[in-house]
């Protein structure tokens, strides 16, 4: 019995997943299959813990969010792991955390949306350098998957063996052989851009750090210098961030006929925006002429 590897995926790729898989055997592991063919049962990420919310009156069920440069991971921990549920509530907000967790997915009965979340197995406070290392490592892993998807596009039949033969790692080849026919291939360009943004994000952080570390004494405080988009930011920057999240949601999910207002709200809530905020942001984007409402309640990019 093989232990499931902990995939390195960014929140955007993970949250874009629309497919879950489960083996037929009783104890068979379940997977979230991402658009780039990560077949995720376990994942490992480092990011900023932005909020922890108790969801049940007795405190036995909590939701938390961990942000990376591309999006937000949603974590749920419940009564079956009381120690983890309690531990989650003990962190300072915000702080850098490293998380090993199991993939979870939820598909509401109405519609074909899927929500991927994480059940944390371990969460530990770490420093900014480890967060940066994780981003760089995850860029490389994601790049390998993008290349494999591109390679697959030129194949007559996309199989694991064919991808292994041209040099891709078996776990990636396996995932892509399943995901390839089920996702829109155009998404790949979006992830190329995501990686570019992620590497720019670190460079920005490095510059910020160079100017701020001199002023700060302890290393845990200086770590905030690498976090230009986090809660120390100004209102303007927060607006910008919200706009970016909302635009990303619309762009990646609008079909021929646009995307419904409700679905935008649902998806943005997952990224940590509340409904009031989403409404404000949609209005502001319409004012800027970036989106419009072809039919009442439906949004489309211009």
């Amino acid at each position: 019995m093989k232990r499931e590897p902990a995939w390195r995926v960014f929140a955007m790729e993970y949250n874009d997943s629309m497919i879950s898989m489960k083996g037929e055997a009783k104890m068979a592991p379940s997977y979230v299959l991402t658009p780039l063919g990560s077949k995720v049962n376990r994942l490992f990420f480092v990011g900023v813990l932005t909020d922890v919310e108790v969801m049940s009156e007795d405190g036995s069920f909590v939701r938390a969010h961990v942000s990376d440069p591309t999006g937000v991971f949603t974590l749920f921990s419940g009564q079956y792991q009381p120690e983890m549920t309690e531990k989650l509530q003990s962190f300072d907000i915000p702080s850098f955390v490293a998380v090993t967790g199991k993939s979870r997915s939820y598909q509401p009965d109405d519609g074909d949306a899927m929500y991927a979340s994480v059940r944390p197995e371990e969460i530990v406070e770490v420093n900014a350098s480890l967060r940066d290392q994780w981003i760089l490592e995850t860029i490389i892993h994601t790049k390998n998957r993008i290349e494999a998807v591109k390679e697959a596009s030129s194949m007559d039949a996309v199989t694991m063996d064919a991808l292994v033969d041209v040099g891709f790692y078996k776990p990636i080849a396996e995932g892509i052989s399943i995901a390839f026919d089920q996702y829109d291939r155009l998404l790949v360009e979006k992830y190329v851009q995501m990686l570019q943004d992620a590497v720019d994000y670190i460079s920005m952080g490095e510059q910020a750090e160079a100017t701020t570390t001199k002023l700060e004494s302890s290393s845990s405080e200086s770590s905030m210098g690498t976090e230009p988009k986090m809660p120390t930011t100004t209102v303007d920057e927060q607006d910008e961030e919200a706009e970016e999240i909302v635009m990303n949601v619309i762009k990646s999910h609008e079909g021929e006929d646009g995307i419904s207002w409700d679905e935008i709200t649902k998806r943005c809530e997952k990224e940590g925006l509340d409904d009031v905020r989403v409404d404000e942001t949609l209005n502001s984007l319409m004012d800027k002429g970036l989106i419009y409402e072809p039919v009442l309640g439906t949004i489309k990019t211009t």
Partner: protein
Amino acid sequence: MGVYLLTNENLNQHAQDILSRLDDQKKKAISAQEVAEELEKFLEYGVPVKQAKQTLLKKFGVNTSVPPDSVERTLLADLQPNKRNVKLITQVVSINPKDIMVKGQPRTIFTGLLRDESGTLPFTAWDKPAMNEGDIVEIANAYTREWQGKVQLNFGNQVIIEQKEKDVLPKETFEPKKVTINEINPLVGTVEMTAKVLSIEEKEITVNQEKKSMFTGVLGDSTGKIPFTAWKDFKLSKDSTILIKGGYVKSFRGMPQINLDENAEVKKQKKQIKESDIPTRSLHLFELDDNPGMYDVAVSGRVIEIQQGSGIVLRCPECNQVLREDGCRVHGKVDGIPDLRIKCVVDDGTGSVKTVLNREQTEKIIGKTMDECKQMNPEELHSLLNESLFARIVSMNGNSLQDFYGSTFLADNIEVVNEDVEKKVDHVRNLLEELE
């Protein structure tokens, strides 16, 4: 209702027939008279003789579907999945016990490798089959399954194994396969290879109350390293380069090894393999899962879990096993000797491996001595372990082993790697240009 009554003579004949196909134990437990009576009961009810005999044979635990003699031999290369009553004539290349869990219960099964003139194939036997390494055997009533697109050969309780002479198989069956070390796996059988003796050590063993010398060591070529055992004195010396013909591969504690016995030929080579050309193989962690055991390899990954049983533990003074709450599993209540260790999972995103850091390695990584750790409460110590190691990259050299629960790494050395983010940003930026 037609009734098929037989004369007593015929009845006894059939009863003897049935008896002759039972194994010895069953034969003792039942008399010809009893068999005849049971048979007669069926016949009185109009069951045809053939069916009645089959029914009784089944009742006595004999596979009746096809009598073994009427089945044609299949070559290993021609075996199809999901066949019953498979008959083979092969040599046993290796056979090893394997501990597995079945429905939560430990159980020992036997796995190994067979070969004939068409190739090799692994087998799985649920009970110890009556055959040893090197034997030439005829195997009847085996069955096959399909597993991940490959044919699996299984021996159930119906299997019949019969010893044969070597000449029933054509000569080419026994020709070794030319390999390099990275191509060696437990399925490869006998091999021909050129390698350098990197180390060798003589050991005295006692076989049938007779003292014998055996030799163990490590071989290397330009693709990697592998341990070996020589069961006779081939006059090997360290640093010599040798050509081996007819060594065979066998797993020892999950690690493939070259075995040299009296069937092997060893020749010294003039052309030397340089030690600097012998690499320590660097592997991704998923590759460990695909191999039963790897000797002297390098891996790295992040620590994604520090497991229960890390920190201060007590060991049994008799057997060195870590004590459980109620004492030692073997020696009961004992005064434990304290030790410090970290059990953790290392993962590189493609696969994972469990490893254990010993006291010395742990002290170095957390910057505290065991005595200092003893003063801390267990939660405090666990936090310190997490702080020092969780999410960090470690690189290790050593051997990997595989068991039912996945891969374990026995690290000769382990180091925490501090990455230079600034340098890596530039590297990653260049990499991304490849995507344009």
